[in-house]
């Protein structure tokens, strides 16, 4: 759909690629810190132990800051830039299959849904986790089950998230992992940007 010829002048490199700053340091730090905490809690840390709890609290704080940042942060980090919109997500999915690639500077509509899903799941994990430490809910079956269900859903979500990142990177040509490390999206020449 875009007017650009894909293999324009055979200049090898990426002549017109633009490096656009997208993710501020806070967003990047939160992303990788949460990923690390989840990884630690899911693998090496004893679920009964104190470090597991501390990591959980850290995730709660990180997500809370991110949510506040969604209100007062810079453009790409704001909720208003990527409102949860299932209809737009479906449309995005259809366009995906049709092969039209639009580069979204913030999250794409499908990615936005995943982001909200991840935040809610993490909060559910934290809330049920804290509940398990209280006298009132200690040892109550459904709380533990909810915590485990939330964890399972988080693992599924993480798998989908990583898959989405890989597919979007291949489709749009924007290296997304690099963007979350350096904060800049390298947008290929001629791509439609939103």
């Amino acid at each position, binding site marked *: 759909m875009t007017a650009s010829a894909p293999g324009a002048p055979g200049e090898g490199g990426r002549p017109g690629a633009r490096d656009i700053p997208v993710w501020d*340091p806070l967003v990047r730090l939160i992303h990788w810190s949460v990923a690390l905490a989840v990884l630690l809690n899911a693998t090496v840390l004893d679920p009964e132990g104190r470090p597991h709890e501390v990591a959980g609290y850290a995730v*709660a704080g990180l997500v809370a800051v991110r949510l506040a*940042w969604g209100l007062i942060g810079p453009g790409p980090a704001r909720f208003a830039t990527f409102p949860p919109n299932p209809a737009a997500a479906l449309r995005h999915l259809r366009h995906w299959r049709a092969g039209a690639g639009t580069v979204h500077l913030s999250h794409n509509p499908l990615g936005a849904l995943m982001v909200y899903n991840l935040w809610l799941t993490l909060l559910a994990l934290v809330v049920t986790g804290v509940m398990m430490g*209280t006298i009132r809910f200690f040892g109550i079956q459904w709380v533990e089950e909810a915590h485990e269900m939330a964890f399972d859903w988080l693992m599924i979500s993480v798998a989908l998230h990583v898959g989405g990142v890989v597919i979007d990177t291949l489709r749009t040509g924007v290296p997304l992992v690099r963007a979350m490390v350096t904060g800049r999206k390298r947008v290929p020449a001629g791509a439609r940007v939103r």
Partner: protein
Amino acid sequence: MTVLPTGPGGRRALSLAVLILLQAACAAFFLGDVLIDFEATAANDLAHVWVEGVVSLALVAAIVLQLIELRHVMQRTERAEQGIRAARGEMQALIGQFFDDWALTPAERDVALLVLKGIDNEGIAALRGTAAGTVRAQTAAVYGKAGVDGRAQLLSLFMEELFADDSPDDRAPTARTGSGNG
């Protein structure tokens, strides 16, 4: 890949972000602790828990203020970078305008630009693949057309232009001519 920010504004934003996140992790931990203590403490001992709760909330308030500060730092950095970009563009336009006024030939323009960038005659000759004598002749032509007697004076023409352009917030001494590199 530049993971770490380069400018002072970027570095400040990064350290602020790290600080905010450390405090947020602590605040979450304290608040969770307060909740659990609140439930586990007998009613007559609650004063202590309340104090803890208020302290935790103060920490949260501090974090919010720092978030706002971080936003300001980022906005200032962005504005400064825009200013630098604009100045760079204007400097280029200004140089081009001077060259036009002096009616430099394309070759002289190239040489003059390299002179402004601080490259010596041998370097320019090597870059342009010409003889050193040719470059000497070209620079002499440039100095003649510009009405200066050498490299330093050519540079000072542009420096003067920079100093003369007083911005509203420092309209102090504009007449800072002469050799002012202490």
